[in-house]
């Protein structure tokens, strides 16, 4: 039995969550943890992909979604804070060598597959990028806020 919220979200379309970062560098893995939490909470309507960095192949997945939420650790801001912003396509200054930005992945998807998914970036302000698989207390505490942001985005 799906909750009213889930039914409402399902009517809104397919949600793709892309968590990226290095899970072996402490808080840089926060996006992977948060993405997995989203998968657990919204298993029927969410596709989750966790990667070390954004690459062109993601454009196909992004093109198949109605809403895309990128999750990433940020080295700025108060540790544990969460910031959400819309992602837009870009027209100039696009480069690719080893990895892409959310905006560049979206641009690839839009230009190659003639789609226009809504896209957002949720940045989690990290505290520690040292070697290790444990999250700092601040990063751990940010996960519920990330989930709340995802829910809020799905309501808009």
């Amino acid at each position, binding site marked *: 039995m799906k909750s009213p919220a889930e039914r409402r979200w399902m009517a809104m379309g397919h949600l793709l969550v892309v968590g990226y970062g290095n899970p072996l560098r402490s808080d840089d893995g926060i996006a992977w943890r948060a993405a997995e939490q989203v998968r657990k909470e919204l298993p029927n309507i969410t596709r989750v992909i966790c*990667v*070390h960095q954004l690459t*062109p*192949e993601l*454009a*196909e997945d992004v093109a198949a979604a109605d809403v895309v939420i990128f999750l990433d650790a940020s080295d700025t801001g108060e540790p544990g804070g969460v910031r959400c912003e819309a992602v837009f396509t870009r027209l100039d*200054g*696009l*480069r*690719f*060598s*080893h990895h892409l930005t959310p905006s*560049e992945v979206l*641009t*690839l998807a839009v*230009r*190659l*597959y003639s789609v226009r998914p809504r896209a957002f970036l949720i940045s989690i302000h990290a505290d520690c990028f040292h070697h290790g698989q444990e999250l700092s207390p601040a990063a751990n505490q940010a996960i519920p806020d990330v989930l709340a942001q995802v829910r809020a985005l799905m309501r808009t």
Partner: protein
Amino acid sequence: MAERKTIIIDPVTRIEGHSKITIHLDEQGHVEDARFHVTQFRGFEKFCEGRPFSEMPSLMARICGICPVSHLIASAKACDALLAVKIPPIAEKLRRIFGMAQVIQSHALSLFHLSSPDLLLGMDADPADSNIFGVLEKDPQLARDGIALRKFGQQIIERLGGKRIHPAWVVPGGVSDPLCGEDRDFILKAIPDAFAIANRSLAWLKSTMEKFRDEIGSFGNFPSLFMGTVKEDGGLTFYDGKLRIVDAGGEIVANGLDPTQYFEFLGEKVEPWSYLKSAYYKPKGFPHGIYRVGPLARLNVSDRCGTPRADQELAEFHELQRTAVLSSFHYHQARLIEILYCVERLEQLLNDPEILSKHVRASAHPNALEGVGAAEAPRGTLFHHYKIDEQGLIRWCNLIIATGQNNLAMNRSVLQVAQRYVHGEKLTHGMLNRVEAVIRAYDPCLSCSTHAVGQMALKIQLLGPEGAVLDEVAR
């Protein structure tokens, strides 16, 4: 009087890893020398010492985010030798499938994401456009094909290994889990599209060759040896076989070489200006024993591929030159032929009626204190050599990586291209891009190849504002 000058390209772009190129000009502005410097350092060979041998495949996979599967396979084969086991036949076939998926995704990355901007937009294109976004503007289908083909290889790796990067599915004695019917059917269903892309891309690439006649003539176009693994019938293989070496004339110099005895015929030399060692063929000495590995070399040493379409393309490839195909520009075409072969061969292997067998791993304790594993990685022959103690702990480890085996050829290629295109009086982007592009043709993977801790000479130079060496420290 004019001064001698050094042009530094730092970093070299659109390759895997970090490096720089220096081009040394004489007083007249003519290129006197050029070098490819690998400026990053890893050291896996040293910090693996003391670890249990059973950890080695997973540790070795961490060397590289592009070709972890190749390291897994070579490492597991070295561990098979330590166990002294013959792995189950289906485990071997699954490893072959895994390895070919790796070849497809790695070759697709090199050709479509890194080199296609040069091939599609030209060597003199604005650097701001020389990337995948420039490709999508000029030829969206090519960009889509590159994305789809790389994803095809990555999805196979993910299905079999559990994740795209650093999977740990290949283990000493075989593989950890059998293939399930759902995954087999998923891959088989995707094969027709991958086959169509490989064919379409080959047709496109061959149609562009005329535009690059000058580059073909000067991009690493020189006599050298070529080395690769072949099956007993001389056919192309990525997993198992004997090493064959041919000369620039295409004549076989050595055949049936046992890869586990690599140290008898391959040597390595350390240069003070790079963290990348230079491998050479011992019977010809250093540096005359220069040889190339990877797609170009594999096709030069192979008599056949063993699949219908790839065999047609190989025959055409061999027609490019009556001798061995010498120009490193043709690495690109060789890469696509190998992708075509892998797609065809994947279909054959997945249609094996026994491929879903549950018997995929042999168990044993160590029965030997020394083991060598070799395989053909996307960039060329890869060797892992381990020695353990009675407790199964690694006591010594040596890795010979494809990029190191191409080091002499890459340096010679950089010099050849610089002498052909670079003139000290006036530098253009197109000149310097060609110097980088010849390195891209080899698709070097530098994170894989820098392991010479304890042996590497280190030289630090203090340069004055005019470039004069003011001081130098070396160890």
